[in-house]
């Protein structure tokens, strides 16, 4: 492997986000995976947990102690661990890209309200740059600490941004989120037993989902989020009900979206009058880094139904993480992220 590759570590590499990071980084031409941690599987080949990686690498998990000296560390542990190790990782490595919810909210009080417990490292909350390229690419170019938003947050922000930016919204936005079972990670319990989770339409968060706080913080809109677990392993979709301040026509709204995302490598505007896939659907995005976004407006132009879809483990976490890395390093944004998605699937 080339000596000049970036030396990257994945903390929490045995999880679902961590595994996706390994897959992407193994296929990335500019990086070398220098460490992949797991407490449970330390010493074992990464293919033990991630069967898709068998035969592609000799990489083994190591235990998460003494993680210093890397060019970049991706932090893919669950919340409490991420809070615990964040400061140390930030100090001992060149760059930290966190995928957990640990450093997304800026206000400790909001954190406590939504997470039901006080943040134990509140001093760090202000120091992370939001890993949302569509919003603050410039800041990411030089960021040392990056916090990638939640998967449903990314989708919602992409769906709502054109309206938020131009102050076009009048009142509460209701956001209906649907998500596959990988959204709860590999550590789940009876909750995610196949026989129970299969065919689910589980309204697990009728209101007050944690991602609501993130969207409100980032968009300034009054967003009400409902989240439902659906029959799928990967994939997230948001359906946003947007009341408009003044009537807009289909053409005007399309123009708003086009203008917002014309230069975005991973956002496609999908709003068709014909065909089987008229509005964004996650299934054709599985494995890809696209967030598809589309809309439909009522005849009176007063309400928009905006829809966005993505793969929660790609554009919803690991993919955006690698996109942030590419931005930070000045590399082409699509490097290692070019997979188109499949059809049929």
């Amino acid at each position: 492997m080339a000596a000049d590759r970036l030396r990257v570590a994945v903390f929490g590499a045995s999880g679902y986000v961590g595994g996706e990071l390994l897959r992407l980084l193994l296929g990335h031409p500019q990086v070398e995976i220098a460490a992949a941690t797991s407490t449970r599987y330390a010493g074992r080949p990464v293919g033990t947990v991630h069967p898709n990686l068998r035969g592609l690498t000799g990489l083994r998990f190591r235990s998460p102690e003494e993680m210093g000296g890397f060019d970049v560390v991706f932090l893919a542990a669950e919340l409490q661990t991420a809070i615990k190790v964040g400061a140390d990782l930030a100090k001992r490595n060149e760059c930290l890209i966190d995928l957990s919810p640990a450093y997304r909210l800026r206000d400790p009080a909001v954190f406590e309200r939504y997470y039901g417990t006080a943040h134990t490292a509140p001093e760090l909350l202000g120091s992370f740059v939001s890993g949302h390229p569509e919003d603050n690419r410039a800041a990411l170019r030089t960021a040392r600490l990056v916090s990638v938003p939640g998967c449903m947050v990314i989708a919602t922000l992409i769906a709502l941004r054109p309206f938020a930016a131009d102050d076009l919204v009048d009142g509460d936005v209701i956001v209906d989120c649907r998500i596959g079972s990988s959204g709860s990670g590999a550590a789940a319990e009876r909750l995610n037993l196949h026989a129970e989770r299969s065919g689910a339409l589980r309204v697990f968060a009728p209101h007050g989902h944690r991602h609501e706080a993130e969207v409100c913080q980032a968009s300034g809109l009054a967003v009400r989020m409902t989240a439902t677990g659906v029959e799928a392993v990967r994939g997230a979709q948001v359906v946003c009900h947007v009341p408009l301040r003044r009537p807009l026509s289909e053409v005007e709204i399309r123009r708003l979206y086009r203008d917002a995302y014309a230069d975005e490598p991973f956002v496609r505007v999908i709003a068709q009058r014909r065909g089987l896939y008229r509005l964004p659907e996650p299934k054709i995005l599985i494995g890809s880094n696209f967030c598809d976004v589309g809309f439909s407006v009522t005849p009176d132009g007063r309400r928009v139904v905006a829809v966005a879809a993505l793969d929660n483990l790609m554009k919803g976490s690991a993919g955006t993480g690698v996109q942030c890395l590419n931005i930070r390093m000045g590399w082409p944004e699509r490097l290692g992220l070019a997979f188109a998605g499949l059809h049929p699937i």
Partner: protein
Amino acid sequence: MSDVGVSEVRCPACEGDVEIDSSTRQFEIVECPDCRSELEVIGLSPMTLALAPEVDEDWGE
């Protein structure tokens, strides 16, 4: 792909760019790559498009 003999016309439904081949004839139906409307070529010089009559494709349940 070669781009010879292609002109761009605005979609009357969504204002997207629709590429029209120079070989295209009057009354031919083309599809807008953005909103996927079916568009009828109603004039050739200048190239003019109109929304084709909508056969309501069933998409419900």
